[in-house]
């Protein structure tokens, strides 16, 4: 999979040639920072934009498609690939449908001011 290994120079400086930090620790760092960013990003949101924002954020949660694509790998075996197929299909619906629906909602915001 896509691991995340700290360059060995840094690791060497830490422990004199030891292994890189386990992914779990790095993952937790990333999670903490991303959660903080997420909290800070959404401040004043007028009610009119709540629904499109929800729809757009939902489309972003389709990022799981990136993981699903790996599951098409032969190493997963028949059952694994079947689960993978389902995952890919559903995640694609989430992404494609999500971004399109959000755009459709937002199109209405632009048009309104033009007619009277």
């Amino acid at each position, binding site marked *: 999979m*896509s*691991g995340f290994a700290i360059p060995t120079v840094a690791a060497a400086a830490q422990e004199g040639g030891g292994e890189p930090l386990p992914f*779990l620790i790095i*993952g937790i760092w990333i*999670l903490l920072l*991303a959660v903080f*960013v997420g909290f800070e*990003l959404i401040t004043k949101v*007028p*009610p*009119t*934009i*709540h*629904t499109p924002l*929800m*729809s*757009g*954020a939902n*489309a*972003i*949660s*389709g*990022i*799981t*498609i*990136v*993981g*699903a*694509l790996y599951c*098409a*790998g*032969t190493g*997963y075996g028949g059952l*694994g*690939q079947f689960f*993978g197929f389902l*995952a*890919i*299909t*559903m*995640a*694609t*619906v*989430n*992404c*494609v*449908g*999500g*971004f*399109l*629906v*959000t*755009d459709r909602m*937002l*199109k*209405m*915001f632009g*048009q*309104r*001011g033009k007619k009277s």
Partner: protein
Amino acid sequence: MTLGLLAISSSVEQVVYMAAALCFIFGLKRLSGVKTARSGNAFAALGMALAVIITLGIVADVSWFVLIGGVAVGTAIGLALATRVQMTAMPELVALFNGLGGAASAFVALAEVARFSGRLSEEGATAGSLSGLGGADLAVAIGLSVLIGSVTLSGSLIAFGKLSGKIWKNRFGPIGSQAVNLATAAVCVLLVVWAGFMASSSGAVLSAHLLLVVAALVLGIGLVMPIGGADMPVVISLLNSYSGLAAAATGFVLQNNLLIIAGSLVGASGLILTQIMCKAMNRSLPNVLFATFGEEEGGGGKDEGYTGVKSSGAEECAPILDAARSVIIVPGYGLAVAQAQHKVREMASILEGKGVEVRYAIHPVAGRMPGHMNVLLAEADVPYEQLFDLDQINAEFRNADVAIVLGANDVCNPVANDDPTSPIAGMPVLNVWDAQTVMVVKRSLSAGYAGIKNPLFEADNTLMLFGDAKKMVEDLVTELQEL
């Protein structure tokens, strides 16, 4: 690190992932402003495209049939749903997509289980369990991903049902009571532990996780069932947050930092949006999730003994409108159900032709979803400048000659201001009673979601127009044209 189609190195992949993450952050920020939202959505979509393309470049040894097949089918379905479904069904569509996203995360975790359990049968007794094979953190991550993803799926499907009117009960047998929910949650936790740490054969590990799916689906149903239809937007926002968490958990399973970042972004921002929505209703999140108003249905169908209600018709009301200088229209869920927005636009045009000032007062939680009324009125080509939100218009009611309430109820109930013991006490409401005349278009005197009486209907300056919103407005249009 595997090298795929394009023999891309892992460093390149990481750089593209960073670009994608920045697109998501930037896009999400812009999505929270009315003017910048459309470009924000485009940015986020760009980030997704980058992530998908680079992943396709990296994956090796895949069944292209599975891959292309899945993407093709998914694109076709997503495209069809997004473009064909009616505007008024947008909220339920968002719920559906959200459920699918959660399900996808669960299935990815299950695929990993399938992959690992294969190795378990090879390595036999030495590994002993899923955590023995891949570590405790992997076992927990898989368990959480399956759990959260499945809860999101069933919860979202129930939300879909409630919003589209297909489900209206608050219970499904014992499922829905908080006691049962607590028990189900406990079972889920136990299953996560058993599936990841104790099940020792490949068959056992797989079936344990499938059992977890079932338990989590039940939990999802039980958590969303008891919540009333009017609160669904808050629930969907929360489920949205959960699907982000599920994606983040999957990121730990696959050791993919983009999944963790994007999932956490959505998880955290979804939670904040949920809080913002609760504040607009002046209720706390626990109150929305766990307190229920009614036993079976959330109110409605009760004629609570009104006195002095003045029933009227289009013939009597049209001259009042004709003579008015300023009219404020208050749309509500009834307008959406009756699909009356185009007729309302027609009526507004006629009134404006007679020199009447027409404005619309949009309450933050009017309709089925925040912004629902805005979308409906936009569909009917109502100019953006005529829509006002609560803070802008509330002081204006006392200067208005007529306030027309179309299918709205709790959002203009004076009890919210006057009675501290009421279920809706403190909720910001529209002061329609300040207008000289109030016309309420409603099918009957039945209560709104909150299930309480609305003294507005018995007020001296209120005229009740009983009927379907679309038909009533049509009659008003006909009468106005004759004047």
